[in-house]
Protein backbone atom coordinates (compact mmCIF):
# COMPACT_ATOMS: atom_id res chain seq x y z
CA UNK A 1 0.00 0.00 0.00
CA UNK A 2 1.46 3.30 -1.04
CA UNK A 3 1.77 6.12 1.49
CA UNK A 4 -0.90 8.84 1.52
CA UNK A 5 1.51 11.54 0.38
CA UNK A 6 1.96 9.76 -2.96
CA UNK A 7 -1.60 10.72 -3.80
CA UNK A 8 -1.21 14.42 -3.17
CA UNK A 9 2.04 15.62 -4.71
CA UNK A 10 2.10 16.25 -8.43
CA UNK A 11 4.65 17.93 -10.63
CA UNK A 12 3.45 21.31 -11.90
CA UNK A 13 3.29 21.72 -15.65
CA UNK A 14 1.22 24.91 -15.78
CA UNK A 15 2.03 28.49 -16.65
CA UNK A 16 4.69 30.49 -14.83
CA UNK A 17 4.80 34.28 -14.85
CA UNK A 18 8.06 35.72 -16.19
CA UNK A 19 10.25 37.40 -13.55
CA UNK A 20 9.80 41.14 -12.96
CA UNK A 21 6.14 41.36 -11.92
CA UNK A 22 6.43 39.94 -8.44
CA UNK A 23 6.42 43.37 -6.80
CA UNK A 24 2.71 43.58 -7.67
CA UNK A 25 2.11 40.33 -5.74
CA UNK A 26 3.90 41.80 -2.71
CA UNK A 27 2.03 45.10 -3.01
CA UNK A 28 -1.43 43.52 -3.30
CA UNK A 29 -0.75 41.16 -0.40
CA UNK A 30 0.23 44.17 1.72
CA UNK A 31 -2.84 46.16 0.64
CA UNK A 32 -5.21 43.24 1.34
CA UNK A 33 -3.60 42.69 4.72
CA UNK A 34 -4.15 46.33 5.74
CA UNK A 35 -7.72 46.47 4.46
CA UNK A 36 -8.63 43.61 6.79
CA UNK A 37 -7.94 45.85 9.80
CA UNK A 38 -11.03 47.72 10.98
CA UNK A 39 -9.09 50.34 12.92
CA UNK A 40 -7.13 51.18 9.79
CA UNK A 41 -10.31 51.46 7.72
CA UNK A 42 -11.57 53.87 10.37
CA UNK A 43 -8.42 55.96 9.96
CA UNK A 44 -8.85 56.00 6.18
CA UNK A 45 -12.47 57.18 6.49
CA UNK A 46 -11.47 59.82 9.02
CA UNK A 47 -8.75 61.03 6.62
CA UNK A 48 -11.48 61.90 4.12
CA UNK A 49 -13.44 64.16 6.51
CA UNK A 50 -11.49 67.30 5.43
CA UNK A 51 -12.38 66.44 1.86
CA UNK A 52 -16.09 66.49 2.76
CA UNK A 53 -15.71 69.80 4.60
CA UNK A 54 -13.93 71.35 1.59
CA UNK A 55 -16.57 69.94 -0.77
CA UNK A 56 -19.28 71.68 1.28
CA UNK A 57 -17.20 74.87 1.20
CA UNK A 58 -16.94 74.67 -2.61
CA UNK A 59 -20.67 74.03 -2.90
CA UNK A 60 -21.51 77.04 -0.76
CA UNK A 61 -19.02 79.22 -2.66
CA UNK A 62 -20.56 78.13 -5.98
CA UNK A 63 -24.17 78.58 -4.95
CA UNK A 64 -24.17 81.55 -2.52
CA UNK A 65 -22.55 84.57 -4.20
CA UNK A 66 -22.77 86.64 -1.01
CA UNK A 67 -20.10 84.43 0.67
CA UNK A 68 -18.15 83.42 -2.42
CA UNK A 69 -15.80 86.42 -2.00
CA UNK A 70 -14.72 85.04 1.38
CA UNK A 71 -14.48 81.31 0.75
CA UNK A 72 -13.94 81.12 -3.02
CA UNK A 73 -11.40 78.37 -3.82
CA UNK A 74 -7.99 79.46 -5.04
CA UNK A 75 -4.56 77.86 -5.47
CA UNK A 76 -3.89 78.51 -1.80
CA UNK A 77 -6.99 76.48 -0.89
CA UNK A 78 -5.56 73.42 -2.58
CA UNK A 79 -2.11 74.08 -1.17
CA UNK A 80 -3.63 74.24 2.33
CA UNK A 81 -5.63 71.07 1.70
CA UNK A 82 -2.52 69.15 0.61
CA UNK A 83 -0.71 70.36 3.72
CA UNK A 84 -3.71 69.45 5.90
CA UNK A 85 -3.77 65.91 4.53
CA UNK A 86 -0.13 65.58 5.55
CA UNK A 87 -1.31 65.02 9.13
CA UNK A 88 -3.40 62.01 8.11
CA UNK A 89 -0.60 60.81 5.84
CA UNK A 90 1.66 60.85 8.90
CA UNK A 91 -0.65 58.45 10.79
CA UNK A 92 -1.17 56.24 7.74
CA UNK A 93 2.61 56.07 7.27
CA UNK A 94 3.05 54.88 10.84
CA UNK A 95 0.16 52.40 10.70
CA UNK A 96 1.08 50.84 7.36
CA UNK A 97 4.81 51.44 7.11
CA UNK A 98 6.27 50.63 10.52
CA UNK A 99 5.87 46.88 10.13
CA UNK A 100 6.39 46.57 6.38
CA UNK A 101 9.99 45.39 6.62
CA UNK A 102 10.44 45.19 10.40
CA UNK A 103 7.82 42.42 10.71
CA UNK A 104 9.47 40.50 7.87
CA UNK A 105 12.81 40.82 9.62
CA UNK A 106 11.32 39.61 12.90
CA UNK A 107 9.81 36.54 11.20
CA UNK A 108 12.95 35.88 9.10
CA UNK A 109 10.74 36.34 6.05
CA UNK A 110 13.43 38.06 3.99
CA UNK A 111 15.17 34.77 3.28
CA UNK A 112 11.83 33.32 2.16
CA UNK A 113 11.21 36.25 -0.18
CA UNK A 114 14.73 36.37 -1.56
CA UNK A 115 14.95 32.62 -2.11
CA UNK A 116 12.18 33.08 -4.69
CA UNK A 117 12.91 34.47 -8.16
CA UNK A 118 12.66 38.09 -7.06
CA UNK A 119 15.30 40.75 -6.65
CA UNK A 120 15.84 42.95 -3.63
CA UNK A 121 14.66 45.92 -5.71
CA UNK A 122 11.38 44.14 -6.50
CA UNK A 123 10.87 43.42 -2.81
CA UNK A 124 11.47 47.06 -1.86
CA UNK A 125 9.28 48.36 -4.70
CA UNK A 126 6.48 45.98 -3.62
CA UNK A 127 6.64 47.25 -0.03
CA UNK A 128 6.91 50.87 -1.20
CA UNK A 129 3.89 50.40 -3.48
CA UNK A 130 1.80 49.19 -0.52
CA UNK A 131 2.56 52.36 1.43
CA UNK A 132 2.23 54.67 -1.59
CA UNK A 133 -1.19 53.20 -2.43
CA UNK A 134 -2.65 54.29 0.89
CA UNK A 135 -0.73 57.57 1.11
CA UNK A 136 -1.83 58.67 -2.34
CA UNK A 137 -5.32 57.57 -1.35
CA UNK A 138 -5.41 60.21 1.40
CA UNK A 139 -3.49 62.96 -0.40
CA UNK A 140 -3.49 62.90 -4.21
CA UNK A 141 -6.88 61.26 -4.70
CA UNK A 142 -8.96 63.62 -2.51
CA UNK A 143 -7.06 66.67 -3.82
CA UNK A 144 -7.77 65.78 -7.46
CA UNK A 145 -11.38 64.89 -6.63
CA UNK A 146 -11.73 68.23 -4.92
CA UNK A 147 -10.58 69.97 -8.09
CA UNK A 148 -13.13 68.02 -10.13
CA UNK A 149 -15.85 68.85 -7.61
CA UNK A 150 -15.02 72.57 -7.82
CA UNK A 151 -15.26 72.41 -11.62
CA UNK A 152 -18.58 70.57 -11.49
CA UNK A 153 -20.09 72.86 -8.80
CA UNK A 154 -18.96 75.99 -10.62
CA UNK A 155 -20.08 74.60 -13.96
CA UNK A 156 -16.98 76.00 -15.65
CA UNK A 157 -13.22 75.62 -15.70
CA UNK A 158 -12.53 79.14 -14.51
CA UNK A 159 -10.28 77.84 -11.75
CA UNK A 160 -8.10 76.06 -14.30
CA UNK A 161 -7.98 79.18 -16.47
CA UNK A 162 -6.88 81.20 -13.49
CA UNK A 163 -4.49 78.58 -12.11
CA UNK A 164 -3.54 76.29 -15.03
CA UNK A 165 -0.70 74.79 -13.00
CA UNK A 166 -3.06 73.38 -10.35
CA UNK A 167 -3.35 69.71 -11.57
CA UNK A 168 0.43 69.20 -12.01
CA UNK A 169 1.06 71.11 -8.78
CA UNK A 170 -1.28 68.80 -6.87
CA UNK A 171 0.35 65.76 -8.47
CA UNK A 172 3.93 66.90 -7.90
CA UNK A 173 3.47 68.18 -4.34
CA UNK A 174 1.63 65.07 -3.12
CA UNK A 175 4.18 62.81 -4.82
CA UNK A 176 7.05 64.60 -3.08
CA UNK A 177 5.18 64.49 0.22
CA UNK A 178 4.40 60.75 0.08
CA UNK A 179 7.80 59.76 -1.34
CA UNK A 180 9.60 61.49 1.52
CA UNK A 181 7.31 59.85 4.07
CA UNK A 182 7.32 56.35 2.56
CA UNK A 183 11.05 56.14 1.77
CA UNK A 184 12.02 57.45 5.22
CA UNK A 185 9.62 55.05 6.92
CA UNK A 186 10.71 52.07 4.83
CA UNK A 187 14.38 52.78 5.59
CA UNK A 188 13.62 53.02 9.32
CA UNK A 189 11.53 49.85 9.11
CA UNK A 190 14.53 47.99 7.68
CA UNK A 191 16.66 49.02 10.66
CA UNK A 192 14.70 47.16 13.32
CA UNK A 193 12.74 43.99 14.01
CA UNK A 194 10.12 45.86 16.05
CA UNK A 195 7.35 47.83 14.29
CA UNK A 196 6.64 49.67 17.55
CA UNK A 197 10.23 50.85 17.81
CA UNK A 198 10.14 51.92 14.16
CA UNK A 199 6.97 53.95 14.79
CA UNK A 200 8.69 55.70 17.71
CA UNK A 201 11.80 56.29 15.60
CA UNK A 202 9.79 57.83 12.75
CA UNK A 203 7.73 60.03 15.07
CA UNK A 204 10.97 61.06 16.77
CA UNK A 205 12.63 61.93 13.45
CA UNK A 206 9.69 64.14 12.45
CA UNK A 207 9.14 65.84 15.80
CA UNK A 208 12.80 66.09 16.83
CA UNK A 209 13.82 67.94 13.65
CA UNK A 210 10.79 70.22 14.00
CA UNK A 211 11.62 70.85 17.66
CA UNK A 212 15.23 71.77 16.82
CA UNK A 213 13.96 74.11 14.12
CA UNK A 214 11.56 75.70 16.61
CA UNK A 215 14.38 76.17 19.13
CA UNK A 216 16.63 77.75 16.49
CA UNK A 217 13.83 80.08 15.42
CA UNK A 218 13.51 81.20 19.05
CA UNK A 219 17.28 81.75 19.33
CA UNK A 220 17.98 83.38 15.96
CA UNK A 221 14.63 85.09 15.50
CA UNK A 222 14.50 83.97 11.86
CA UNK A 223 13.49 80.92 9.82
CA UNK A 224 16.60 80.61 7.66
CA UNK A 225 17.34 77.19 9.18
CA UNK A 226 14.00 75.67 8.09
CA UNK A 227 15.97 73.05 6.13
CA UNK A 228 16.65 71.29 9.46
CA UNK A 229 13.01 70.20 9.76
CA UNK A 230 11.71 67.44 7.47
CA UNK A 231 8.15 68.79 7.46
CA UNK A 232 9.33 72.37 6.88
CA UNK A 233 11.29 71.28 3.83
CA UNK A 234 8.22 69.59 2.34
CA UNK A 235 6.13 72.64 3.20
CA UNK A 236 8.65 75.02 1.61
CA UNK A 237 8.80 73.00 -1.63
CA UNK A 238 5.00 72.71 -1.69
CA UNK A 239 4.72 76.51 -1.44
CA UNK A 240 7.04 76.87 -4.41
CA UNK A 241 5.12 74.31 -6.48
CA UNK A 242 1.78 76.08 -5.81
CA UNK A 243 3.45 79.46 -6.49
CA UNK A 244 2.58 80.67 -3.02
CA UNK A 245 4.67 82.98 -0.82
CA UNK A 246 7.23 80.82 1.04
CA UNK A 247 6.45 79.99 4.65
CA UNK A 248 10.11 80.31 5.67
CA UNK A 249 13.13 82.43 4.82
CA UNK A 250 15.32 79.60 3.54
CA UNK A 251 15.39 79.08 -0.26
CA UNK A 252 13.13 76.28 -1.51
CA UNK A 253 16.02 74.93 -3.58
CA UNK A 254 17.90 74.07 -0.38
CA UNK A 255 14.80 72.30 0.94
CA UNK A 256 14.61 70.34 -2.32
CA UNK A 257 18.27 69.33 -1.96
CA UNK A 258 17.66 68.17 1.61
CA UNK A 259 14.66 66.12 0.41
CA UNK A 260 16.75 64.54 -2.36
CA UNK A 261 19.49 63.80 0.17
CA UNK A 262 16.97 62.18 2.50
CA UNK A 263 15.66 60.01 -0.35
CA UNK A 264 19.21 58.99 -1.32
CA UNK A 265 20.02 58.15 2.30
CA UNK A 266 16.85 56.05 2.60
CA UNK A 267 17.66 54.11 -0.58
CA UNK A 268 21.20 53.55 0.65
CA UNK A 269 19.92 52.20 4.00
CA UNK A 270 17.47 49.89 2.21
CA UNK A 271 20.21 48.64 -0.09
CA UNK A 272 22.33 47.70 2.91
CA UNK A 273 19.60 46.28 5.11
CA UNK A 274 17.40 44.28 2.75
CA UNK A 275 19.41 41.09 2.36
CA UNK A 276 18.69 37.39 2.44
CA UNK A 277 21.27 36.88 5.12
CA UNK A 278 22.58 39.09 7.86
CA UNK A 279 26.33 38.88 7.96
CA UNK A 280 27.99 39.78 11.23
CA UNK A 281 31.72 39.85 10.62
Amino acid sequence: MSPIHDQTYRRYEGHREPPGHTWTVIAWAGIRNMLQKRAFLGLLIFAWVPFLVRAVQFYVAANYPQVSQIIAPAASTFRDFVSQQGTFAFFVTIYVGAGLIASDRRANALQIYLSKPISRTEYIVGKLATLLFFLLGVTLLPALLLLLIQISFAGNIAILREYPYLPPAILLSTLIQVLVMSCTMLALSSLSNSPRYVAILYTGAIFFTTAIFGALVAITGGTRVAWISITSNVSQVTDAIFRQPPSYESPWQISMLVILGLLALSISVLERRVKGVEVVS
Partner: protein
Amino acid sequence: MVNRPDSADAVVLDKVTVEYGKNRALQEVSAVFPRGAVGLLGPNGAGKSTMLKSLLGFIKPTAGAMQVLGLDVATKPTEIRARLGYMPENDAHIPGMNAVTFVAYCGQLAGLPHADAMQRAHEVLYYVGLGEARYRNVETYSTGMKQRIKLAQALVHDPDLLFLDEPTNGMDPKGREEMLELVRDIAHNKGISTILSSHLLPDVEFVCDHVVVMDKGRVATFGPIQELKGPAGRVYEVRIKGDLQKFIAALEAQGIECHETDEDIMRVFVPADHATGESARVFQLAASHGVQVRHLRPSLPTLEDVFAKAIGEA
Protein backbone atom coordinates in the same frame (compact mmCIF):
# COMPACT_ATOMS: atom_id res chain seq x y z
CA MET B 1 6.90 28.08 -19.18
CA VAL B 2 10.37 28.64 -17.82
CA ASN B 3 13.13 27.39 -20.07
CA ARG B 4 14.77 24.50 -18.23
CA PRO B 5 18.27 23.77 -19.52
CA ASP B 6 19.41 20.32 -18.56
CA SER B 7 22.61 19.60 -16.71
CA ALA B 8 24.11 16.36 -15.55
CA ASP B 9 25.03 17.78 -12.15
CA ALA B 10 22.78 19.69 -9.79
CA VAL B 11 25.51 21.93 -8.36
CA VAL B 12 29.13 22.54 -9.26
CA LEU B 13 31.50 24.66 -7.18
CA ASP B 14 34.91 25.65 -8.46
CA LYS B 15 37.40 27.05 -5.95
CA VAL B 16 34.78 29.09 -4.12
CA THR B 17 35.96 31.32 -1.30
CA VAL B 18 33.58 33.22 0.97
CA GLU B 19 34.87 35.67 3.54
CA TYR B 20 33.02 37.34 6.43
CA GLY B 21 35.39 40.16 7.22
CA LYS B 22 38.63 38.45 8.19
CA ASN B 23 37.04 35.03 8.63
CA ARG B 24 37.03 32.60 5.73
CA ALA B 25 33.77 30.66 5.84
CA LEU B 26 34.57 28.75 2.64
CA GLN B 27 38.13 28.19 1.48
CA GLU B 28 38.61 27.36 -2.20
CA VAL B 29 35.79 24.85 -2.12
CA SER B 30 35.48 22.64 -5.18
CA ALA B 31 32.72 20.04 -5.23
CA VAL B 32 30.18 18.40 -7.49
CA PHE B 33 26.67 17.61 -6.33
CA PRO B 34 25.12 15.07 -8.69
CA ARG B 35 21.38 14.83 -9.30
CA GLY B 36 19.46 12.82 -6.73
CA ALA B 37 19.83 13.03 -2.98
CA VAL B 38 23.09 14.50 -1.74
CA GLY B 39 23.96 15.06 1.89
CA LEU B 40 25.97 18.09 2.93
CA LEU B 41 27.53 16.89 6.11
CA GLY B 42 29.70 18.61 8.64
CA PRO B 43 29.93 19.84 12.20
CA ASN B 44 28.41 23.18 13.18
CA GLY B 45 30.43 26.01 11.64
CA ALA B 46 31.80 23.86 8.83
CA GLY B 47 30.36 26.20 6.19
CA LYS B 48 27.31 24.21 5.07
CA SER B 49 24.76 27.01 5.43
CA THR B 50 27.20 29.50 3.94
CA MET B 51 27.53 27.26 0.90
CA LEU B 52 23.75 27.03 0.45
CA LYS B 53 23.32 30.78 0.90
CA SER B 54 26.07 31.44 -1.63
CA LEU B 55 24.34 29.15 -4.11
CA LEU B 56 21.11 31.09 -3.55
CA GLY B 57 22.92 34.34 -4.27
CA PHE B 58 22.50 35.71 -0.72
CA ILE B 59 26.26 35.90 -0.27
CA LYS B 60 28.72 36.85 -2.99
CA PRO B 61 31.93 34.78 -2.96
CA THR B 62 35.22 36.64 -3.04
CA ALA B 63 36.58 34.08 -5.50
CA GLY B 64 35.50 31.09 -7.53
CA ALA B 65 32.54 30.13 -9.69
CA MET B 66 29.31 28.26 -8.97
CA GLN B 67 26.77 26.59 -11.21
CA VAL B 68 23.30 25.38 -10.24
CA LEU B 69 21.40 23.19 -12.72
CA GLY B 70 23.87 24.29 -15.39
CA LEU B 71 23.27 28.01 -14.76
CA ASP B 72 25.89 30.44 -13.49
CA VAL B 73 24.98 31.77 -10.03
CA ALA B 74 26.73 35.10 -10.63
CA THR B 75 24.82 35.95 -13.81
CA LYS B 76 21.49 34.10 -13.53
CA PRO B 77 20.42 34.11 -9.88
CA THR B 78 16.74 34.77 -10.65
CA GLU B 79 16.48 31.94 -13.18
CA ILE B 80 18.15 29.63 -10.69
CA ARG B 81 15.84 30.60 -7.83
CA ALA B 82 12.81 30.00 -10.08
CA ARG B 83 13.87 26.34 -10.16
CA LEU B 84 15.02 26.09 -6.55
CA GLY B 85 13.21 25.44 -3.32
CA TYR B 86 14.91 26.56 -0.12
CA MET B 87 14.02 25.45 3.37
CA PRO B 88 15.97 27.68 5.76
CA GLU B 89 17.44 26.42 9.01
CA ASN B 90 15.73 28.84 11.38
CA ASP B 91 12.04 29.68 11.77
CA ALA B 92 10.82 31.70 8.82
CA HIS B 93 7.37 32.71 7.67
CA ILE B 94 5.47 35.69 6.30
CA PRO B 95 3.77 37.33 9.30
CA GLY B 96 0.00 37.59 9.61
CA MET B 97 -0.94 34.75 7.27
CA ASN B 98 -2.52 31.35 7.72
CA ALA B 99 -0.72 28.33 6.29
CA VAL B 100 -2.59 28.04 3.01
CA THR B 101 -2.36 31.78 2.30
CA PHE B 102 1.34 31.74 3.15
CA VAL B 103 2.17 28.79 0.92
CA ALA B 104 0.01 30.12 -1.95
CA TYR B 105 1.69 33.51 -1.58
CA CYS B 106 5.10 31.80 -1.84
CA GLY B 107 3.85 30.08 -5.00
CA GLN B 108 2.85 33.43 -6.47
CA LEU B 109 6.23 34.90 -5.53
CA ALA B 110 7.78 32.05 -7.50
CA GLY B 111 5.70 32.93 -10.56
CA LEU B 112 2.61 30.73 -10.29
CA PRO B 113 -0.74 32.34 -11.18
CA HIS B 114 -3.00 32.97 -8.17
CA ALA B 115 -5.45 30.10 -8.81
CA ASP B 116 -2.69 27.57 -9.50
CA ALA B 117 -0.73 28.73 -6.46
CA MET B 118 -3.77 28.25 -4.23
CA GLN B 119 -4.46 24.77 -5.59
CA ARG B 120 -0.82 23.76 -5.20
CA ALA B 121 -0.77 25.17 -1.66
CA HIS B 122 -3.61 22.85 -0.63
CA GLU B 123 -1.95 19.84 -2.28
CA VAL B 124 1.47 20.49 -0.83
CA LEU B 125 0.10 21.14 2.66
CA TYR B 126 -1.64 17.77 2.57
CA TYR B 127 1.55 16.20 1.29
CA VAL B 128 3.64 17.50 4.19
CA GLY B 129 0.97 16.50 6.70
CA LEU B 130 -0.54 19.90 7.48
CA GLY B 131 -3.82 19.41 5.64
CA GLU B 132 -5.96 19.65 8.76
CA ALA B 133 -4.10 22.67 10.11
CA ARG B 134 -3.90 24.65 6.90
CA TYR B 135 -6.26 27.44 7.99
CA ARG B 136 -4.38 28.09 11.21
CA ASN B 137 -2.10 31.08 11.54
CA VAL B 138 1.50 29.95 11.05
CA GLU B 139 2.56 31.82 14.18
CA THR B 140 0.51 29.38 16.30
CA TYR B 141 2.30 26.31 14.89
CA SER B 142 4.54 24.03 16.93
CA THR B 143 8.22 23.63 16.02
CA GLY B 144 7.55 20.45 14.07
CA MET B 145 4.70 22.08 12.14
CA LYS B 146 6.90 25.07 11.36
CA GLN B 147 9.47 22.71 9.86
CA ARG B 148 6.77 21.14 7.70
CA ILE B 149 5.42 24.48 6.49
CA LYS B 150 8.94 25.55 5.54
CA LEU B 151 9.15 22.41 3.43
CA ALA B 152 5.73 23.19 1.91
CA GLN B 153 6.74 26.71 0.85
CA ALA B 154 9.90 25.29 -0.71
CA LEU B 155 7.89 22.75 -2.69
CA VAL B 156 4.84 24.75 -3.78
CA HIS B 157 6.30 25.96 -7.09
CA ASP B 158 7.53 22.44 -7.92
CA PRO B 159 11.28 23.08 -7.97
CA ASP B 160 13.85 20.92 -9.75
CA LEU B 161 16.26 21.23 -6.84
CA LEU B 162 15.65 21.50 -3.10
CA PHE B 163 18.02 22.95 -0.52
CA LEU B 164 17.09 21.67 2.93
CA ASP B 165 19.04 23.24 5.77
CA GLU B 166 18.79 21.08 8.91
CA PRO B 167 15.17 20.02 8.20
CA THR B 168 14.78 17.93 11.35
CA ASN B 169 15.95 20.59 13.81
CA GLY B 170 13.80 20.66 16.93
CA MET B 171 11.53 17.80 15.88
CA ASP B 172 10.43 14.95 18.15
CA PRO B 173 11.54 11.42 17.11
CA LYS B 174 8.26 10.57 15.36
CA GLY B 175 8.13 13.89 13.54
CA ARG B 176 11.77 13.53 12.56
CA GLU B 177 11.14 10.11 11.13
CA GLU B 178 8.15 11.41 9.13
CA MET B 179 10.14 14.37 7.85
CA LEU B 180 12.98 12.11 6.70
CA GLU B 181 10.47 9.82 4.97
CA LEU B 182 9.05 12.85 3.17
CA VAL B 183 12.47 14.07 2.10
CA ARG B 184 13.44 10.62 0.92
CA ASP B 185 10.21 10.36 -1.05
CA ILE B 186 10.79 13.76 -2.64
CA ALA B 187 14.35 12.92 -3.60
CA HIS B 188 13.79 9.38 -4.82
CA ASN B 189 10.22 9.26 -6.13
CA LYS B 190 9.26 12.77 -7.14
CA GLY B 191 12.21 13.58 -9.39
CA ILE B 192 13.35 16.55 -7.30
CA SER B 193 17.07 16.62 -6.64
CA THR B 194 17.75 17.35 -3.02
CA ILE B 195 20.70 18.72 -1.09
CA LEU B 196 20.25 17.94 2.58
CA SER B 197 22.48 19.95 4.87
CA SER B 198 22.79 18.40 8.30
CA HIS B 199 25.16 17.65 11.11
CA LEU B 200 23.15 14.50 11.87
CA LEU B 201 24.77 11.52 10.19
CA PRO B 202 21.77 9.16 10.46
CA ASP B 203 19.58 11.72 8.67
CA VAL B 204 21.98 11.96 5.75
CA GLU B 205 22.55 8.21 5.63
CA PHE B 206 18.79 7.56 5.59
CA VAL B 207 17.99 10.00 2.79
CA CYS B 208 21.04 10.39 0.59
CA ASP B 209 23.04 8.38 -1.94
CA HIS B 210 25.91 10.84 -2.14
CA VAL B 211 27.61 12.93 0.49
CA VAL B 212 29.83 15.99 0.62
CA VAL B 213 31.63 16.20 3.94
CA MET B 214 32.74 19.66 5.04
CA ASP B 215 35.04 20.75 7.81
CA LYS B 216 36.38 24.19 8.67
CA GLY B 217 35.25 25.72 5.39
CA ARG B 218 36.77 23.02 3.21
CA VAL B 219 35.43 19.92 1.51
CA ALA B 220 36.93 17.01 3.43
CA THR B 221 35.61 14.36 1.07
CA PHE B 222 32.76 13.73 -1.35
CA GLY B 223 31.30 10.88 -3.36
CA PRO B 224 28.71 8.08 -3.25
CA ILE B 225 28.15 6.97 0.33
CA GLN B 226 28.59 3.26 -0.50
CA GLU B 227 31.86 3.98 -2.26
CA LEU B 228 33.16 6.07 0.61
CA LYS B 229 32.27 3.34 3.07
CA GLY B 230 34.81 1.17 1.24
CA PRO B 231 34.78 -1.97 -0.90
CA ALA B 232 32.54 -4.96 -0.19
CA GLY B 233 33.64 -6.95 2.79
CA ARG B 234 33.22 -6.97 6.50
CA VAL B 235 34.85 -5.19 9.37
CA TYR B 236 35.31 -7.09 12.62
CA GLU B 237 36.33 -6.01 16.04
CA VAL B 238 38.82 -8.66 17.19
CA ARG B 239 40.59 -9.29 20.51
CA ILE B 240 43.13 -12.12 20.77
CA LYS B 241 45.37 -13.81 23.25
CA GLY B 242 48.84 -14.46 21.85
CA ASP B 243 51.48 -12.67 19.80
CA LEU B 244 49.55 -9.71 18.46
CA GLN B 245 52.23 -8.35 16.12
CA LYS B 246 52.82 -11.77 14.56
CA PHE B 247 49.10 -12.24 14.05
CA ILE B 248 48.71 -8.83 12.46
CA ALA B 249 51.57 -9.62 10.09
CA ALA B 250 49.88 -12.92 9.18
CA LEU B 251 46.56 -11.16 8.49
CA GLU B 252 48.17 -8.49 6.37
CA ALA B 253 50.07 -11.12 4.43
CA GLN B 254 46.66 -12.53 3.48
CA GLY B 255 45.43 -9.12 2.29
CA ILE B 256 43.41 -8.44 5.41
CA GLU B 257 43.61 -4.85 6.63
CA CYS B 258 44.20 -4.33 10.37
CA HIS B 259 43.96 -1.23 12.57
CA GLU B 260 44.93 -1.27 16.22
CA THR B 261 42.73 0.87 18.50
CA ASP B 262 43.57 2.51 21.82
CA GLU B 263 42.19 -0.50 23.67
CA ASP B 264 43.21 -4.12 23.13
CA ILE B 265 40.63 -4.48 20.35
CA MET B 266 41.69 -4.15 16.74
CA ARG B 267 39.54 -3.48 13.69
CA VAL B 268 40.01 -6.00 10.91
CA PHE B 269 38.71 -5.53 7.37
CA VAL B 270 38.23 -8.85 5.59
CA PRO B 271 37.58 -8.58 1.82
CA ALA B 272 34.38 -10.28 0.68
CA ASP B 273 35.92 -12.43 -2.03
CA HIS B 274 36.95 -15.20 0.32
CA ALA B 275 34.94 -18.31 -0.36
CA THR B 276 35.33 -19.57 3.15
CA GLY B 277 33.47 -16.68 4.77
CA GLU B 278 35.07 -13.67 6.40
CA SER B 279 34.90 -14.72 10.06
CA ALA B 280 36.02 -18.31 9.33
CA ARG B 281 39.06 -16.90 7.59
CA VAL B 282 40.07 -15.02 10.76
CA PHE B 283 39.59 -18.13 12.91
CA GLN B 284 41.64 -20.28 10.49
CA LEU B 285 44.53 -17.82 10.55
CA ALA B 286 44.37 -17.60 14.34
CA ALA B 287 44.43 -21.38 14.68
CA SER B 288 47.35 -21.75 12.29
CA HIS B 289 49.38 -19.18 14.25
CA GLY B 290 48.52 -20.48 17.72
CA VAL B 291 46.46 -17.46 18.68
CA GLN B 292 43.21 -17.58 20.69
CA VAL B 293 40.35 -15.40 19.42
CA ARG B 294 38.73 -14.02 22.58
CA HIS B 295 36.35 -11.59 20.92
CA LEU B 296 35.05 -11.27 17.36
CA ARG B 297 32.16 -8.99 16.54
CA PRO B 298 31.06 -7.73 13.10
CA SER B 299 31.34 -3.97 12.73
CA LEU B 300 29.73 -2.54 9.59
CA PRO B 301 31.42 0.53 8.15
CA THR B 302 29.07 3.49 8.65
CA LEU B 303 28.86 7.01 7.40
CA GLU B 304 30.17 7.92 10.81
CA ASP B 305 33.41 6.14 9.93
CA VAL B 306 33.60 8.08 6.67
CA PHE B 307 32.87 11.33 8.47
CA ALA B 308 35.38 10.70 11.24
CA LYS B 309 38.05 9.71 8.75
CA ALA B 310 37.33 12.73 6.54
CA ILE B 311 37.61 15.30 9.30
CA GLY B 312 40.61 13.58 10.84
CA GLU B 313 39.08 12.07 13.94
CA ALA B 314 39.79 8.49 12.92
